[in-house]
């Protein structure tokens, strides 16, 4: 029976993974990065490729790093909220993930640009460093470049109020 037992063994291994997976809610997953310094990066600016967007730009203020791409339908859904956040004064940096520059520029032109700057991560290396699960995804990064929060799926007013604002208040109080 030996080789005929292979399928059942595969099923059991898969089952083990699923069991672990159930304990981990992917939307509110605790990123291993939380509380640690943000991975360093330096990428060409999407709009002006001769300039660079890098970790050092984020120093000294609370910032959002928003992972987006024109291929991502849900990114369009959160776009309006990002625009209103940007208008309210929150600095948002974009990580334009595995995208085509022309499409991305057209997107920003047509829909509006909420970003202070967007870093073009064409290959996806930086996204890997950040453990990006899927776009859209938003990181809250503190003035000392510590990752404070990570949210997978579109950012909404509720999520912003409950998962981001309290952290900003808490951490600005400490300083």
């Amino acid at each position: 029976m030996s080789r005929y037992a292979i399928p059942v063994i595969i099923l059991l291994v898969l089952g083990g993974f699923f069991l672990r997976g159930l304990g981990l809610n992917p939307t509110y997953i605790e990123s291993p990065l939380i509380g640690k310094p943000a991975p360093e990066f330096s990428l060409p600016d999407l709009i002006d490729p001769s300039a660079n967007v890098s970790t050092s730009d984020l120093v000294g203020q609370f910032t959002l790093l928003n992972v987006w791409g024109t291929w991502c339908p849900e990114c369009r859904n959160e776009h309006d909220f990002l625009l209103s956040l940007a208008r309210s004064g929150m600095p948002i940096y974009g990580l334009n993930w595995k995208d085509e520059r022309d499409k991305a520029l057209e997107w920003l032109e047509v829909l509006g640009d909420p970003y202070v700057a967007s870093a073009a991560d064409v290959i996806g290396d930086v996204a890997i460093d950040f453990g990006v699960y899927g776009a859209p995804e938003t990181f809250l990064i503190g003035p000392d470049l510590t990752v404070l929060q990570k949210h997978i799926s579109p950012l909404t007013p509720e999520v912003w109020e409950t998962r981001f604002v309290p952290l900003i208040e808490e951490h600005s109080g400490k300083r």
Partner: protein
Amino acid sequence: MIPELGHFALVLAIFLALYQAILPLAGAAWGRNDWMILARPAATAQFIFVAIAYVALTRAFLLDDFSLLYVAQNSNSELPVGYKFAAVWGGHEGSLLLWCLMLATWTLAVAWGSRGQPLAFSSRVIGVLGIVSVGVLLFTLLTSNPFDRLLPAAVDGVDLNPLLQDPAMVAHPPMLYIGYVGMAVPFAFAVAALLTGRLDRDWARWTRPWTIGAWVFLTGGIALGSWWAYYELGWGGWWFWDPVENASFMPWLMGTALIHSLAVTERRGIFKSWTVLLAIAAFSLSLLGTFLVRSGVLISVHAFASDPTRGLFILMLLLLISGGALVLYAFRASNLEAEGGFRLVSRETFLLANNLLLVIATFLILIGTLYPLFHDAMGAGNLSVGEPFFNAVFLIPMLPLAVLLGLGMHTVWQKMEPGALFARLRWIGAAALIAAIVYPLIVFGSTSVLTVIGVGAGIWVTLSSLIEPISRWFNSRAVRLTRAQWGMFLAHLGVGLFIVGASVTSAFNIETDRAVRIGDRWEVAGFEIEFRGMRTEEGPNYVAEVGEFDLRSNGELVASLRPEKRIYRVQTNPMTEARMDIGLFRDVFIALGEPLGDGAWSVRVQYKPMISFLWIGCIVMAFGGLLAATDQRYRRTVRQRVEPRTKVGVTAEQGSH
């Protein structure tokens, strides 16, 4: 009161399902005919009670009974009546009840369609289906009861998700579920065969029409879902490799492999243990899909509200049902002996290659879908694979499959001279290659290696599916094709058309996003588009901003399109209703984006060449499946022994398929 009756009917259905599971299986094990003959009535009764529960829930929707939590969450008094029927399966609980109803319906059909089969066998099939029913019904009742009351009752409901308020969405879930759940039938046949220890050509002949039937619905359901995504999500994409799409696509691929493997087992009595394994795998992937969609382990645009208890329950169900079958397989599969061999150049070889490639494709998609989960569970953080991964891993096994498909269709069983095969297909191969190089250049003025490969593969499959029916048509002395053969050629023709459509539309699709004002004219892909105006319209439960666009080609009006941006009154998120001018060789697609202020709107216009071929391909495939499933040899009610067959009979059959 009626909802309580529905709830009670569901409880009774569980007991009937238990009865339907235990008695026939025990009867078959101990040779008790008086127990086995109860299988059919038990299955019938189970169906009746599940149907009562389903009707009770539907009634609650039609009467706006917002004292039911589920109704309050998924309907609204203003929801049009047609969508109230669809709202029954608009959420987790009701769609699970639909799952149960579909399973009960398949069981009923199998119970009454299997009267020509030996009692011990048909009883086991019904018994195995009973076990699955018990599991799913218990799941519904214990974790997802749609009859839970809401006290005090809501004044009005929170409405059906506006994305689902669409005609294609009314048909998509039931169709998909029929197909999904239908994979339980070959599964039950496979387990029954393992229990009996008898797996012969009769078994394959009994199993095949059910498998094809489920596959036809699955094909239709997936195509409808893809069509819906194309025009309702407002993006013009038709396949996103979303975990939920993958969850329905994997059983489809396995089902396709199973149909082909069953053909070999039916004709030649080989590939037996492989066929059984595919049958188990196809249904296991259906269950896995259910698990992925409803447990929240993966993020998806369609995922239902996630709940770890539900996830745990389905996981246990998956492990018990599939695990049980696979343990049985581990012990019994070695007894399944091949009845003969075959040569290298023979239809068997091509079907084996078909199976391996389909299984590899399924496996790669499974890995891609679950990758975030593996990565995460091993504590390595999150990582995802995107569309580029899926496109690549899917194309790698699919292109050789398309080439082999054309060859395999024209190969006979057991042994064929390679020279004869070459003589038969060389002109088709040459024609496909030339057309693949010339056609994109002439029509679209450019091409690429991938386009040539894709279009070439599609035309190759299309032509090789057509040649046999056409040549027989012109040769009056030729033996007429059987319905199953027609089905095979048509289904493959559908595959060919689909490949052509998919290759052309992904290579030459033009997408534009523009900020425009009323009165603006601009050009996309040779069409002149004019933004004529905006107005506001009231729908039954929404308000829509309707854009008016004229589409002209060489100054002639082709179509006036009115894409909408709807705000539903209850769930206020805006919905994009794209509009298309549909043609056989191209669609022009207009969707309204966001208002940009000062009367400007962002407007997305897309030119989609040959996208209709995708849907036509799927319809042709499904129709081919329908013909094959209703072939005469599957409609014999009296048992006929296929073997022993005389030498003459075998030779006569070699020319056919």
